[in-house]
């Protein structure tokens, strides 16, 4: 396992629900973080591990549910950020699932294929080729990261680590992320364009 794979595997685990198994392994997780070479990723994961190890289990559960289960803004389902609640989302989910299959992997039954811990695990298993979905959903990851920072969540550090492992955002991507944060996920406007003979159409141009 490469250090990079370990980093992604750690991100995958740390972003999972803090159930009893994960809680029991907190020390090992911290230890594993320590084995990483000095890097921004290591610093950020260590910062998170500190809180994660010290916090009471009930507090961890409450915080996780609040951040990831009951808030759209920092939901861990990546295709939501790219496609919102549109019909393209089903196809995007399918695409991921097929990608896992092509790699000889069986997609999870109890979880969607775009769940960030799943996507990270895929990257950890498949190396560079497996990181394609992460790169494709770079903007969504950035949105989650920003939302977690805004909410003052310690989980922001995990997303920092993940972001640091990925290519930097370009100027254009940054602008897109800002627009997404402002407007929310995309919606669909099928059938919303006005239709009528041209003489009736003045003033109805879309303000896109």
């Amino acid at each position, binding site marked *: *396992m*490469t*250090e*990079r794979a*370990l980093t992604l*595997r*750690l991100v*995958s*685990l740390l972003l999972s*629900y803090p*159930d009893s*198994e994960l809680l029991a*392994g907190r020390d*090992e*997780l911290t*230890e*594993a973080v320590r*084995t990483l*070479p000095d890097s921004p990723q290591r610093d950020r994961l260590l910062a998170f591990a500190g809180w994660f190890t010290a916090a009471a289990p*009930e507090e961890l*559960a*409450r915080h996780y*549910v*609040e951040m990831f*289960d*009951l*808030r*759209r803004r920092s939901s861990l*389902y990546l295709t*939501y950020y790219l496609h*919102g*609640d*549109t*019909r393209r*989302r*089903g*196809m995007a*989910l*399918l695409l991921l*699932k*097929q990608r*896992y*299959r*092509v790699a*000889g*992997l*069986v*997609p*999870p039954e*109890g*979880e*969607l294929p775009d769940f960030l*811990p*799943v996507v990270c*695990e895929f990257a950890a*298993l498949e190396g560079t080729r497996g990181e394609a979905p992460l790169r494709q959903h770079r903007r969504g990851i950035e949105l989650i990261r920003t939302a977690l920072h805004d909410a003052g969540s310690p989980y922001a550090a995990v997303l920092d680590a993940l972001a640091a492992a990925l290519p930097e955002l370009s100027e254009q991507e940054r602008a897109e992320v800002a627009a997404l944060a402002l407007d*929310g*996920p995309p*919606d669909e*406007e099928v059938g919303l364009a006005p239709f009528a003979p041209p003489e009736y159409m003045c003033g109805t141009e879309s303000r896109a």
Partner: protein
Amino acid sequence: MGAMPDPLPFTRRFLTRAEVSADGRTLHQIDPSAWDRFYRDRWAHDKVVRSTHGVNCTGSCSWQVFVKDGLITWEHQATDYPSVGPESPEYEPRGCPRGASFSWYTYSPSRVRYPYVRGVLLDLWREARQRLGDPVAAWAEITGDPGKARTYKRARGKGGFVRSTWDEVTELVAAAHVHTTKAHGPDRVVGFSPIPAMSMASFAAGTRYHSLIGGTLLSFYDWYADLPVASPQVWGDQTDVPESADWWNSSYLVMWGSNIPVTRTPDAHFLTEARYRGTKVVAVSPDYADNVKFADDWLAPHPGTDGALAMAMGHVVLTEFFRDREVPYFTGYARRYTDLPFLVCLEQRGDGYQAGKFLTSTDLGDDEESAAFRTVLLDDRTGETVVPNGTLGHRWSESGKGNWNLDLGDVEPALTLYRWADEHVPVDLPRFDEGAGEGGTTLRRGVPALRVGGRLVTTVFDLLMAQYGVARDGLPGSWPQSYEDSMQPCTPAWAEEITSVPAATTARIAREFARNAERSQGRSMIAMGAGTNHWFHSDTIYRAFLALVMLTGCQGRNGGGWAHYVGQEKARPVTGMQHLAFAFDWQRPTRHMAGTAFWYLASDQWRYEGFRADELANPLGKGLLRGKAFADCNAQAARLGWLPSHPTFNRNPLDLADEARRAGSSVAEHIVGELKAGRLRFAAEQPDDPANFPRALTVWRANLLGSSGKGNEYFLRHLLGTDAAVRSVETAESQRPHELDWTEDAPEGKLDLLTTIDFRMTSTALFADVVLPAATWYEKHDLSSTDMHPFVHAFNPAIAPPWQARTDYDTFLALADRFSALATDHLGTRTDVLAVPLAHDTPDELAQPGGRVRDWKHGECEPVPGRTMPKLVPIERDYAAIGEKMRAIGPLLDTLGTTTKGITYDVGPELAYLRSQNGVRGDNRPSLATAEHMCEAILALSATTNGRLAGQGFRTLERRTGTRLADLAEENEGKRITFEDTRKGPQPVVTSPEWSGSETGGRRYSAFVINVERDKPWHTLTGRQQFFVDHDWMIELGEQLPVYRPPLNMHSHFGDQTLGEDGRAEVTVRYLTPHSKWSIHSEYQDNAYMLALSRGGPTIWMSTVDAEKIGVADNDWVEAYNRNGVVAARAVVSHRMPAGTVFMYHAKDRNVNVPRTELSGKRGGTHNSLTRLLLKPSHLIGGYGQFTYAFNYYGPTGNQRDEVTVIRRRSQEVTY
């Protein structure tokens, strides 16, 4: 980076390597162009599954769901509805933008994916559970410790959920139910789920569970104020209406408060098609609603004054089509199918008279059985009195067998006594447009009268002519001179003053409506909606509407009559659904409860009244309501056996049965004795005693706090015990109820456990203690039907419930199992006792003759169960066997069969069929172990879906009516719709005695066609459609006949509610909460599509006039407040709105864009923060004829339209 071993101890993975099969082979995709195939196949679906949209939409449209690799990727309207035959438009396709955006709920981030419990409660639970070892003892300790209880109740609505497991959470809920049953009584375990028609198995799973343990089931149709109370009053029928394809058969269609394109979207095309055919369409709506632009005429009465408009139209119809010219079609219809010819006793009142009771055989000295229920008319040929066939007395007597029909023989009923009259006498009639208070005053007009058997009588028709102010020569009293006379009710000019609709327009529309009916033999229709049905006095509004369709012979005709489209819930396979949903196969009856009365007491809204019931009484009343608060009326209705009342007594019913056994008396004797001695009280008299609190509430398929909870802030404060923005003071001491115990400190947090089962995090879920993840409508087996079309069809799982979601069916099975396990030690087998109200469509209708109120508590009679008080029915419950009873059809169906609307069916062959189809359990009982089994059983046991039962039912009915009916089902006697059939596509149902219309020969369904064409009586006192009702309390309220009652005058009852701070501009306006086109209740409002199409988040629509008064521009933030609460919203300023009225669309949930309010400083406020409950006393009546109880058939409505609110601009900086 170098390679290193995985240092982590976790074995779990989301992704696993594809397995090699047992024979050593494995499938590898070696095609290097694998990705090409993905793109090539991207529109090829693995399967297409048919389903529909669940509980909250009346459309019941069939949809195709496309599945690929276990993912729902697409959905599409089904187009294969069975044809409705030639010369009529088809049903297909059906759908709307809301349904089309449903599938994205499946994977939406807002979905409830795991079982949740609020952390503070779960910590308490785990600790106590661990320490005590016994879950029931743990729940007892937590709820018994005031400190602990307060801690978790105060946390409601404030987040803090953590995931639990199904196992843990099922045990918690089951322990709470066992403890509540044991310590407080099974009737303190309450279930709420509405509208069985739109997913019958899911409904039935929970109601069956509650029925088996003895829990209380709350009604919803009346609670939603969708029940048109006029329908049971006039017809003795809950609701029966035409399917939408029957609009095509209409040639004059009035949309009255029903916004068809918006709220009946999939059906609206029939309206378009009817217009192309030449049907005239009229819209009556105070605002420029979407449907208005499709109408030929638009009448815009002030909100809530529709009754005045309808009365004026009735005035025109009676004047021009009955007085000035006789229309044989109308008078023939009136004589045969209405109570207009029946005789009413006139009682002396000062120097005049007033209408009393119907003249009955008893009054004529007859002492035959049920003579008090045989109403009398005059034969116009002979002048002799006659008791015609078909009265209630014929329905429930031995001698009535074969005579319960509308056949008049040679008799020609006299509509008027004008030519027979001994004298013309003055009668006092109620009017409510004038007078000091809500009770109005009286006016004096005259009727022709005749002395019969020592009594002065007149006909209902003569009284109606007087009520509508249609003058005839020689009659005394004050009458309008012309349509232009605005001083006299009910002229068009009088209505113009009230409604603003020009008198000439009213007269023209009325004339057209009736003339069309005359020429087409009854094809004039009124489609009415919540705009007219959600008022406090909606029953009077509706009776004025129904008078129009009955006078013009439109009811029971295709293309004519009423078309009430509010909260349709026609579960067409009703018999199977009801018997299994309420576990009538194991025990009868169940604890059905009137929802509004329950919430009124449970949420302590009764403590905040500004006026009393006697305020509503007309001077014609005898003072029966004098000094009574609304809660007093409810308490009286409970003890007289009129309405159910659960929780029932201030003692655990299980303990009552034990006491009786120890005392060696029957349970009923014991209870009557204890009540008489005053040792036992009805819980409705002590709603704030902890012994009487509802303790555990389970809500499924519903969003109580986000949609229907009128008086939201009272719910939050008293029922849940958390933050609330109630601004009202409690009722002044002088106005308080006399019969209820008043505790100084109102309880907060009555409820120990609120469980919500949903797939969305609704407002109800946000306040729940436990949230369970439900399967969506594309993830389960179920059945759907509606009033709007004549088909039944299925829900099917396109995918298995994802994450940890479960179907409602499986959830309740698991709960029943755990309940049984815990109950083995804690409960065992116990005897329960139910107080059961006098029931509709049973001989109970004969219990209280004349609708005379006699109260045993006041010594006016003895308490006799089943006559002067509720029946007392003991039921033995083996609490350890609940889980097994859930899964098998019980033995009562073998011996008692099934009964719907008074007709009993032998279902022996059906049980045999189900044994083979579903398999058996236990003692050779047909299985209900899965939702599919339940669906199969519902279909097999219902006459609409099983032709054999339809034929049998009609033959049974024939023995009572003596007329021919069975031929209606003959063409389908061999037809049985199986669940498999419904999974393939929508299946047309069979004509059945369960309903009043006919599909025979492929015709369109319309209500009461069987009554009109086959002389089958209505289920009323006279057996006819009743203009006139004579229960004591109806006399008290002045509502014996249709009458106009204006909206309640909130200002006079609750005073000026403006704050007037610092001269800030405010305006007080009428506050309405209609449905929008971007949601179905709270559903879809959080959906990106609908948020994009609408403005999203809470909005209040107001007129340009009102906006200008308070300096509000479009999209500004405003605050609306009154004594009930406060809500912040953006203003939508529109010319569409009339001045003085605002809309806040129904069911704006508190999870999208809801800021803190300036006034309370708290986040939240919903559309129901400004509303509250008011009980109308006439909705509580029972024990007499059609005024008897059935679930969702009768009961107080949770109306909300009479409310007013103050609006002002607020700071444009909002925080969340």
